[in-house]
C-alpha cells in the first residue's frame, strides 16, 4: 500500500500556479510512490493554502538523492545569508 508517512509544516510562502501567484500557508511532506518521477519512492512536497487546499495545491516530487542535495544547498544559502 502507499505509505501514510506524512509530516505537516506551517509555512509563509508564495508559489506560482497557472500564471498566478498563490499564497501558501501549509506543506505536507510525505514519503511515497511518485506519480511521475522515476523510482519506487520519493519525497513529495504538497504546498497549499488551507482556505482552498485542493485548488491551491502546488506539488513537487523529488528523489531522495535530490532532497539531500537540495537540503544541503538550502543550508548553504541560509548560512551565507547569515540566517542560520
Amino acid at each position: 500500500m502507499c505509505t501514510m508517512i506524512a509530516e505537516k509544516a506551517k509555512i509563509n510562502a508564495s508559489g506560482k500556479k497557472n500564471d498566478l501567484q498563490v499564497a501558501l500557508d501549509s506543506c505536507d511532506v510525505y514519503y511515497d510512490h511518485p506519480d511521475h518521477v522515476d523510482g519506487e519512492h520519493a519525497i513529495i512536497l504538497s504546498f497549499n493554502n488551507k482556505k482552498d487546499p485542493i485548488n491551491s495545491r502546488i506539488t513537487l516530487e523529488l528523489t531522495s538523492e535530490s532532497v539531500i542535495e537540495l537540503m544541503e544547498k538550502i543550508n548553504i544559502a541560509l548560512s551565507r545569508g547569515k540566517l542560520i
Partner: protein
Amino acid sequence: MKKYNTHDYEGLLAETIKIKSENKTFDTWGDSKEDEINAYFAKPITKNPDEKFPVVVLIHHLPGWDELYKEFTRKFAHHGFLAICPDLYYREGNGSPEDVAAQVRSMGGVSDKQVIGDLLGATNYISNLDIHNGKFGLFGTCSGGRHGFLTGCKTDRFDAIVECWGGNVIMDESSITDKQPESPASLTKDFSGSLLGLFGNDDVSPPPEQVDEHERLLKEHNKDYVFHRYDGAGHGFMYHDRPLYKQEQSVDAWVKILDFFENKLGV
C-alpha cells in the same frame, strides 16, 4: 479470459452515476439521511437483451479515483462484467484526482467503516438492476487491496476478492488509528469468499515477510485462496501510467485476475 475475434461485436457503456452509500450523514437536527457519492459504472452491451452479468466492484487506490481506475473499470466491462468503482474521496472536494487525494492524505485518509459503506452502496445499486447474475466480485490495489481483504472479513457480500499488494493488512499497535481501528489480518478467521492475492517480491509495503504471514493465517483458518508472487516487481507493478510498471508481470496478472473472476463468478 474472454477473448474477441476481430469480427465479433463489442460494446460497452461507461458513465459517471450517483449511488447511495450505506453510510448515513446527519443533518443539524440529528436526523440521518442517505449519503450520495459518485461512482463510475461500465456495463457490457451484447446482442442478447436477457443476458445477466457478474459484477466487479473496484476499490480505487490511495492516489485517488483517477483515470487509471476508470480504465480498469472499462476493462472489466470489456471482459463481460458489470463494473462499478465508487469515488471513495467524493466527500473531500472537487478537483483533479491527484489534488483531492493529497487532501485526503493530509486528513489521515478515509475511515475503513466509510469505505465499506461505500462499497456496499455500490453493490446495492447493482442489486437493483435486472442485469446481474447474483455473483459479486471485489478488486482493489494498494490501499484498495487492504480494503478488499478487510471487506471480505467484515461482510459476506462478495463471492470472490482480488487483493493486489495490499499493505497494512498486517498492522502493529502503532499503526492502529481511529480511522483504521483493526488490523485486517486479525480478522482472517471471518474472511468469506475466495481470495486471489497478487504481490511483487520487491515491494516494501507489503514486504515479502508480511505476505508470508498473511498466507500463513489464511492457511491456518482453511480459507479458499491463491497467492501469486512476482520476482522483478515491486509495488504497483500493474500501473501502466507510472514508473512502477512491469509489463511482463502485469500482463500475467491480468490473465490471472480475469480467469479467477470468470471461474468464481461466471461470465
